[in-house]
């Protein structure tokens, strides 16, 4: 079941195209990473899903239904450019933002109190936002995003400006929300957090979708049949021709770390057999590319 399907979205501005025929399908209850360098079109995509701007072509379906104002109450959005009313009190502000997402006043008060207690900022309920530290303001922004228990949570660069403690806290909350049934779209250009959080990713570059799928599949398809071997005793060119040693490092006395690529259809077991014959194998691991490497190879290659 797909929580969100975007079909052939195109958005043009007078002097450039922000999105060019981009299609996404975001599985329900996944954490979906929307990746791309700055200016690739991520924020445009997110604004279209939030109905802040309209797509010129294409359509967005949420749970199979065409995007419409009624979806506002099931979407939670934490924009990259985010803030709060500085002169408003914490409680009032959360209740107001909850009401804008169609909660009743009573319900909004109840949930705001529960959340502020959970994140340990309840004692600030009657304080003005301008009196809060940046970290506390960030917690409030996060609460306001998830207050109405949205089915679809959209976080645009959620960790930019968060201190590590808060970032971790938010990560835990994100996992919890996913487990409770929410789908999370997570836009970023910082790859470390993607590796950790996302199960699906899409890579946008220069307004075009260049990669989409589950993290596992993508990594798999970018495998280059390369293995990392730690061994005692040098290889000294004693491997058959179908195996190519890309790298050979002496770690300490007679102890090596080599990177070996398998050419052709030969299986890893064959490689292991050949290795065992010439050296003492201590570890044998397939080299899987990181998202960051894939990202750089895809984006860099396009330039």
């Amino acid at each position, binding site marked *: 079941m797909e929580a969100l399907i975007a079909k052939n979205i195109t958005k043009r*501005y*007078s002097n450039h195209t922000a999105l060019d025929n981009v299609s996404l399908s975001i599985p329900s209850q996944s954490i979906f990473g929307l990746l791309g360098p700055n200016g690739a079109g991520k924020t445009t995509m997110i*604004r279209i899903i*939030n*109905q*802040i*701007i*309209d797509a*010129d072509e294409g359509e967005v379906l949420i749970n199979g239904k065409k995007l419409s104002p009624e979806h*506002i109450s099931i*979407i939670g*959005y*934490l*924009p990259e*450019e*985010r*803030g*709060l*009313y*500085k*002169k*408003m009190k914490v409680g009032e502000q959360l209740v*107001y*933002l909850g*009401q*804008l*997402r*169609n909660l*009743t006043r009573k319900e909004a008060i109840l949930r705001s109190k529960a959340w502020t207690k959970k994140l340990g900022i309840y004692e600030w309920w009657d304080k003005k936002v301008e009196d809060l530290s940046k970290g506390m303001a960030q917690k409030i922004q996060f609460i*306001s995003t998830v207050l109405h228990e949205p089915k679809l949570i959209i976080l645009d660069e959620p960790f930019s400006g968060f201190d590590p403690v808060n970032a971790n806290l938010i990560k835990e909350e994100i996992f919890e929300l996913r487990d409770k049934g929410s789908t999370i779209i997570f836009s970023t250009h910082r790859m470390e957090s993607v590796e950790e959080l996302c199960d699906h990713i899409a890579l946008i570059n220069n307004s075009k979708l260049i990669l989409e799928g589950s993290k596992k599949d993508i990594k798999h398809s970018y495998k280059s049949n390369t293995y990392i071997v730690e061994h005692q005793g040098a290889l000294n060119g004693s491997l058959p021709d179908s195996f190519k040693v890309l790298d050979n490092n002496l770690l300490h006395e007679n102890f090596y770390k080599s990177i070996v690529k398998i050419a052709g259809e030969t299986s890893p077991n064959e490689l292991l057999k050949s290795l065992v014959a010439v050296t003492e194998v201590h570890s044998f691991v397939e080299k899987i590319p990181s998202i960051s490497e894939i990202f750089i190879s895809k984006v860099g290659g396009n330039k």
Partner: protein
Amino acid sequence: MNKTFLIIQREFLSRVKKKSFLIATILVPLIFPALIGGIGYVMKKESENANAQVIHVLDQQGSFNFENTDKYEFVKVTGDLETAKTAFAESEDYGLLYIPEFNIESPKGFVLYAKSNPSFSTIGDIENEIEDAIKDDKLQVYNIDKEVLDKLKTKVDLRSVNIAEGEEKESDAGISFAIGYFTGFLIYIFMFAYGGQVMQGVIEEKSSKIVEVIISTVKPFQLMLGKILGVASVGLFQVLIWVVLIAILSTTVLGLLGLEIPHEAAIQGADVETSEKFLRLLANIPFTKIILTFIFYFIGGYMLYGALFAAAGSAVDSPSEAQQFMFPIMIPLIAGIIGMQSIITNPDGNVSFWLSIIPFTSPIAMMGRIGFGVPAWELALSMVLLVLGFIFTTWMAGRIYRVGILMHGVKVNYKTLAKWFMMKN
């Protein structure tokens, strides 16, 4: 629940709960009467306490005989001009009036020497003294009896009655003038005060970056309209409090002094007929009509300008950047206030007509005219155009606003605004 209403509510409450609102709301009705009363009191004291100014008179004609007044004491001096000047320079007195020998048919050559620049009123007073003296001389020369001449003077009080609306109404240009100027000026002030609040609110939302969260839940147009209407309700609420406070204050004050004022007036020998006439005229002023018109033009004008202020706020990142867009918004308002002079002296003239029809100036200009009576069709036309005007500016501002609020760090000029305006959603 209607979200525009939610926004109006927030805008209203967040402003009304501020201490500055409370202070302004309570102080303004106290400050203005206190200020006017205070200045009046000081002026009165000053004129009461002022010593008569001593003016030396060097009369070479020899026929002048000035009588001393409250303000001036005339001292005759003799000798030639130079000695008189030296004597005057050494004295502490105010002035030296030099009257040369002159031909009574073409009097000239009078000079007032003073140690500072004499005011218009001083010069006028002394001119009157000289003119009166020459007149008396002339009466003698022409053999006219002064008493007969005095009897020739007749005083007529012309009542002006406006029958344009079918019913007879006694009108008074003075009161209409005052009401027109006052209400027009109030509208002018309110446009700036409350329009400025809209602009600041928009800039605040934009610079604190809350705006993207809000417009993911409501249309930008709703947010803008909510803000404009929210500030409008604050304005109306404030004006309402002022009206009530002033009404209570003035009835209390009148209740305390009510008996004393006519009493005192009678003792001072004030013209009872005049004060009766004043009350009669006051009763004839169509206050209900003026108040209703005022509310209409206040709301209409505010909506028109509020939208423009909102658009200006959305285009910039800080209030100082907004200056460049403030100027063109201010021009028609200032034109309206300047036009007021001509409206009040000639309420049915061409300038008055056009200024009170064009929506950008009509809120101010029409208030200037309303006390004098405005033909129904002109009023209707002006009102319809004002409504169309604010629908137009709100629509236009909305198109700029929806793009502007999401733009950060962009250098904005009129070309950019036009581009935003044309941009599709």
